């Protein structure tokens, strides 16, 4: 009983301290950093959560449509694109007013999608139909549907706009699609069930995660071959729980971050040596990741614990877990 009491006291003291430090941090930061907004799709709430990450607060939740998953923001930060999978569309939402301003024809069951750097073309994975749909945003028209492998999921465009990448989960391939002709130029066979793909800022490397092998593969853009395969290991977590999904690499090319799914961790990978430097405990079934605009923080969506984690990248620590709603899925940030 005594012990319990002491624990409670400790906990209270702890939380007060944490709140204080959070407050201090916020005060310190608000002076130097502009406010930013984090948008999170809530798959099972049919809603969008709007978070002020510096204050560590959920500002509000707005209805967005059936089963929202993929989310992205336009390069000018004015428009949000949200895939509402069960409505077979991608909604265009004003990032200020949060009102719907339009819809894009996305093909069936859109989940993940990618914008080109200019922000005028959007590419969608249509998982059940083995297609990638190319959409002209201004005209709200489908330009082309490209046949890819079975169950395409991960999709990304290289920063130099030369390559569109589609990763098919059951075919176990990365398709290299020429963005000028919208045709597949090459296919690279990768580890089973590739999930997400991300280019380095210089477009020279493509990082691909494999959910089933628990691995990260680094591909060379020139040769389109795998130059390095990394297998993640976490002490006290069985290999089958390590299911890498989301992957992002910082602009400086120093570090990459990989969400390890039901292992409930984010791995920090040295982008030069490809060594895993640290593994951080976040929420449950962590899937998607987004940097803050200054790349000092990383936001993660934790599907089954219904929260997001905020990681301070300088100290490499999780500073906060913030409950946002049911099944947080996608995340994007507006400066």
């Amino acid at each position, binding site marked *: 009983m005594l012990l319990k009491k002491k624990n409670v006291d400790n906990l209270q003291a702890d939380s007060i301290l944490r709140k204080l430090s959070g407050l201090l941090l916020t005060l310190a930061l608000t002076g130097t950093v502009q406010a930013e907004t984090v948008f999170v799709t809530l798959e099972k709430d049919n809603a969008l959560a709007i978070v002020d990450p510096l204050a560590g607060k959920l500002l509000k939740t707005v209805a967005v449509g059936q089963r929202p998953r993929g989310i992205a923001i336009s390069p000018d930060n004015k428009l949000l694109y949200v895939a509402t999978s069960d409505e077979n569309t991608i909604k265009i939402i004003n990032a200020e007013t949060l009102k719907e301003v339009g819809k894009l024809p996305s093909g069936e069951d859109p989940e993940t999608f990618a914008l080109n750097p200019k922000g005028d073309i959007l590419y969608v994975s249509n998982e059940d139909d083995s297609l990638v749909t190319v959409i002209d945003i201004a005209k709200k028209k489908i330009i082309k549907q490209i046949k890819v492998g079975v169950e395409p999921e991960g999709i990304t465009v290289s920063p130099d706009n030369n390559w569109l990448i589609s990763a098919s989960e059951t075919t*176990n391939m990365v398709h290299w699609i020429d963005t000028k002709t919208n045709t597949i130029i090459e296919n690279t066979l990768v580890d089973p069930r590739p999930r997400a793909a991300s280019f380095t800022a210089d477009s020279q490397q493509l990082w691909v995660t494999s959910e089933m092998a628990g691995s990260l593969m680094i591909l060379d853009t020139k040769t389109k071959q795998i130059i390095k395969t990394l297998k993640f290991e976490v002490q006290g977590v069985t290999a089958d729980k390590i299911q890498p999904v989301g992957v992002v690499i910082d602009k400086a090319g120093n570090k990459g971050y990989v969400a390890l799914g039901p292992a409930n961790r984010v791995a920090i990978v040295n982008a030069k040596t490809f060594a895993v430097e640290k593994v951080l405990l976040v929420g449950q079934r962590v899937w998607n990741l987004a940097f803050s605009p200054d790349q000092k923080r990383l936001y993660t969506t934790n599907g089954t614990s219904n929260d997001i984690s905020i990681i301070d990248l300088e100290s490499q620590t999780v500073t906060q877990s913030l409950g946002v709603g049911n099944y947080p899925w996608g995340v994007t940030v507006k400066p």
Partner: protein
Amino acid sequence: MNPLELLNMNFYYYQPMRSNNSTLQVLVVFYLFFQLVNVNLVYAKSKQIIDIAYLTQEQIAPPQLSNAEPFIKNKGIIGAELGIDDDNTTGEFTGQQFNLKKFIVPLDGNITDTFNKAISHHFQYVIVNLPATQLTQLADLPATKDLLLLDVATMDDALRNEQCRNNVLHLLPSRAMRADALAQYMMKKRWDKWFLVVGSTQEDRLFAEAIRRAAKRFGMKIIADKTWEHTFDARRTEQSDVAVFTQIDDAYDVVVVADEQGQFGEYLDYRTWNPRPVIGTQGLMATAWHKTHEQWGAIQIQNRFKEKAGRWMEEQDYAAYLATRALGEATTRTKSNDIKQLKAYILSDAFALQGYKGNPLSFRTWDGQLRQPILLAAPKSLVAVAPIEGFLHPKTELDTLGYDQPETQCKWDK
């Protein structure tokens, strides 16, 4: 069109042209001819063909208790078709083509005849959806020696032990694997005392045997072990009968039922003397696939299957899907259609098949059994997935289910 046909076509063209006596024309024709042959050779070289046979026999609907679930005639076939579709989608990028030829032997037909006449000399890979005795007969035919049979129907432990054949791979979990999955769950729930109810068919006895083995393996106690008799006594009703049947002096935590055909198992739930859960072939069931399964991308294949078949995916469909996908995966990775290479790859450590159940699936090299998680499902919800957390194994936790290497009676190399 095959290269030979094209070659012939060119030849016929070329002859009448020659009588024309114009050298230029002859040259043009020659040029075209070589171009075509050239292109065609490249084409033929790059396209690898993998022919797969699917062999089954017509079935009649067995007697069943409930009409809630209609009898499904084509279990397995649609799974194989979906797998071939997926293989071919991948094949478009790898220059490989998969063909599936189905052989459905009529009720009064002779399976061995069909196999000898139409299959064994034309196909190296045969998906077999037949009972254990027919499967073994086919596997022992001289012509089958160098073929690979992919069994998508049997659960018999004997076929994975003393009766094993090294030209057969088993896609569905054995009875022992299912019983172990159930036992792990019961152990976790601390349902240590079991009341085993066994039906009167041979299959029921085999399932009960697997349950008894699992009880021993996991240190559980079988308090009562009774056979359910089928009689036509008008005084017996399920309400009175089950209560009397399950009224025993010793306390038990759970009723474990072995009734593979579903002739009485559904009667047990809610009618036992003491309120106890029912588990086994009815109630909470151990299965390779279930309609309630949605995790690990399973929802995608559930949707794709339903769209194609107009019904839910059954175990045999899942097994046949995996059979075609295993061949596809091996072909893609080895860039070969040679049976020796494919078989070696399928049985190697490198082989990892995505089966929508989290862990990658692979084959046990000591008995040809596909190692896989097992779903524990109630009619409308997925309750657990075995191996249950906490059951450990030095190599892979999937091998906590069924006959592990040290226990096997199979002499696979023979």
